[in-house]
């Protein structure tokens, strides 16, 4: 469903992503972990079609994001870590606008929009300008907008930022439900407990290179992390265990 092939991205002398290859199966929730500046967001932006790779390609549902960007994006939903929203539009107007970009007729998605807005407690706010929304409300609106066209692939960069506990729980349940319905989810997060809870497989990237990849079970067998938790394994793999300054 998601096929990343020898992906490399260079920013001048810096190689942000280095020959990354990865496959994610249909219906799978793939957790993409790594320390700050490891190349997660760059990889995700290339997958979402808003950044061109230096070499390599990404196929979503067998369609190349490079060669046929419009077709690939029509099947994809993307939730960025720092989303842009039009402050002067209302929540409802924003959703209609996004739906239009995906070629959906407003009348056909009215019910869908109502359900999603109710689910995320935004129905009463639908006719308010987005500038009056809190950070968490904006994040919820962006999640709704990414799901409105029923994508077959969901690419998510830090989904829980700014969400309250209820919002976090809704998102976790929603992702599991979407995955069960066949949607492939590629999720980048720093919240290791979330990754541990909902992901089927994990990949850890550091300095642009995939240093570990496998199912949750394989990670458990390899490093006995279940006893110590995913955090210890992550820090061990990325070599960030030393915190001398705190001692």
């Amino acid at each position, binding site marked *: 469903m998601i096929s990343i092939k020898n992906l490399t991205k260079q920013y001048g002398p810096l190689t942000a992503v280095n020959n990354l290859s990865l496959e994610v199966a249909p219906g799978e929730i793939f957790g993409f972990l790594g320390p700050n500046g490891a190349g997660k967001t760059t990889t995700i932006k290339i997958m979402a079609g808003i950044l061109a790779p230096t070499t390599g390609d990404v196929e979503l549902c067998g369609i190349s994001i490079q060669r046929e960007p419009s077709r690939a994006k029509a099947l994809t939903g993307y939730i960025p870590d720092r989303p842009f929203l039009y402050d002067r539009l209302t929540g409802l107007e924003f959703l209609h606008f996004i739906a239009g970009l*995906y070629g959906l007729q407003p009348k056909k998605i009215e019910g869908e929009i109502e359900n999603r807005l109710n689910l995320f407690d935004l129905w009463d706010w639908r006719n308010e300008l987005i500038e009056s929304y809190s950070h968490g409300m904006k994040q919820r609106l962006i999640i709704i907008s990414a799901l409105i066209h029923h994508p077959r692939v969901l690419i998510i960069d830090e989904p829980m930022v700014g969400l309250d506990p209820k919002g976090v729980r809704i998102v976790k349940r929603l992702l599991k439900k979407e995955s069960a319905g066949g949607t492939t989810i590629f999720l980048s997060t720093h919240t290791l407990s979330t990754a541990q809870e909902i992901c089927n497989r994990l990949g850890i990237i550091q300095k642009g290179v995939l240093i570990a990849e496998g199912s949750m079970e394989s990670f458990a067998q390899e490093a006995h992390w279940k006893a110590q938790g995913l955090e210890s394994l992550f820090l061990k793999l990325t070599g960030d265990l030393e915190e001398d300054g705190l001692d």
Partner: protein
Amino acid sequence: MDLTNTLAPLFLLLRPRIQGFRNRLQRLPETRWKIILFVLLGAAFWGGIFYAFYRILNYFSSIPGFGEVLSQKVLSMILLTFFTLLIYSHLITALANFFLSKDLALIHETPMPRLILFSARYLESWFDASWMVLLLGLPIFFCYGIIFQAPVGFYLLLPLVFLPFVFLAGSLGISVTLLLTAFFPIRRTRDLLVILSLILVGLLFLIFRLMRPEQLVNPEQLSSLAAYLNSLSAQDSPFLPSAWTKEIFWALLKGDFFSTLLPLGLLWTSAGLVFMSNLLLGRQFFFRSYSQAQEGPYKGLQINARFDVWLRRLLPSNPDLQSLVLKDLKTFYRDKTQWSQLFILLVLIVVYVYNFSVLPLNKSPLPTLYLKNVISFLNLGLAGFVLSSVAVRFVFPAISAEGQAFWMIRSSPMVLKTFLRYKLVFYFIPLMVLAELLMVFTNRQLGVSGAMQWISSLTMLSLTFGLVGLAIGLGALYPRYSAENLGQMATGFGGFLYMLCSLALIGLTIVLEAGPVYRMLITDLRSTPLSLLDRWWMIGSFGAVFFMHISSGIWAMRKGRASLEKT
């Protein structure tokens, strides 16, 4: 892809802008007042241009033998200036609309075809960059129609001429932007602005050379009247679209519709051709350049650590003030967009000062010293205007520029009063130096009397305080933390209000000082001493001016502080 399938998504992309504007109108009542104010002032400005240009053109057209040729020459100059301005404004607007807008990531991640997004941004750039020139041009073109008694067809066919004219100039500007961004390392987009500014300066010089304005005002330099007439009626370069436009315009004015066909065809086909080339360029480079625009951090200019230490020694010993000064200096130093704008302003100021050296004052029938002092006094107003233009661009955004990081100041132990006072001093010093240099240089060029030099310098000193205080205060009252760049921060309602207030302050200064200055010059001219009444009048007027400058600065600062404390 049929036309409906292309146009529907194109208009969909314009929807947030239209809907956002409508929402602002419906939900924010102050927006309506702002718009009404804008419209009223715009209408007054429009009327002013119409009146002034009508008088000028009426005068030119009435000169026997020269009238029509002179009017044509003026039209050529106007069209060439518009053409160049349109190219430049499209260069800048296209850069923002195609590559730097915050909503681009949101749209690029959707299946919207890139060429449609490109076309929508093309349309937006065209609108953003040309409405002002069109608005400015209309009264001028109407003046021509009225004075030369044009037939109705002239007015009806004007859009047919100016649509391709504006579109061609705009498309050429967009072509340059697309080519520059395709071949320059765009992660240094801001460097590009410096280059664009240099291009503007180059274009300004080119325009003046192409226009040869000295021929209009100084005919005696030419060997004979025939040579003067010849030089005026010489054809403009046949490669200039502004020359084709002038040809069409003049033929329409005279009701000779048949003669317009060839140049009109040339104008339309050229506009179409450049547009098609831009579509090809867009297909090839649009996404690639956009992608490059997001790449990598921009390090800016490095500041030597030793320089840092040296600078600290020069500053007051308070660590909080030291931090603020160093932060502001470094931010300014590393932001090349600031440099480019400063560079343009300096060029304009140099041209301004230079103009004083070429004023033909000796040819006037009035006594030279009297005239020089009067001009020096009026120069106060002009210099004040230059100063307020610099302040609206560099000082007004001082609070907004703190942007999303303003919470650091607010959560620090520094009180807002100290912070605003620091900003006042930080900007007052360089602006005061600039203002005084302006006055000293222009007064030296004019050779004005000592008393007038003192009046100018002291008035400028207090006026600078007033203008800087107003800029800081109103900037705090109407902050735009989320604006994409410093230029944008000054273009909102607050910036507009600042310009109005500063113009009012300058106008009142002139009004209050005009009487006593006139009395002083007259007594000087007659070599009689000032009467007691004159002396009291001078003390009263200059005192009122000083009080007005200081109190308006302090008032605005207080208002700004009160507003910041509430938020």
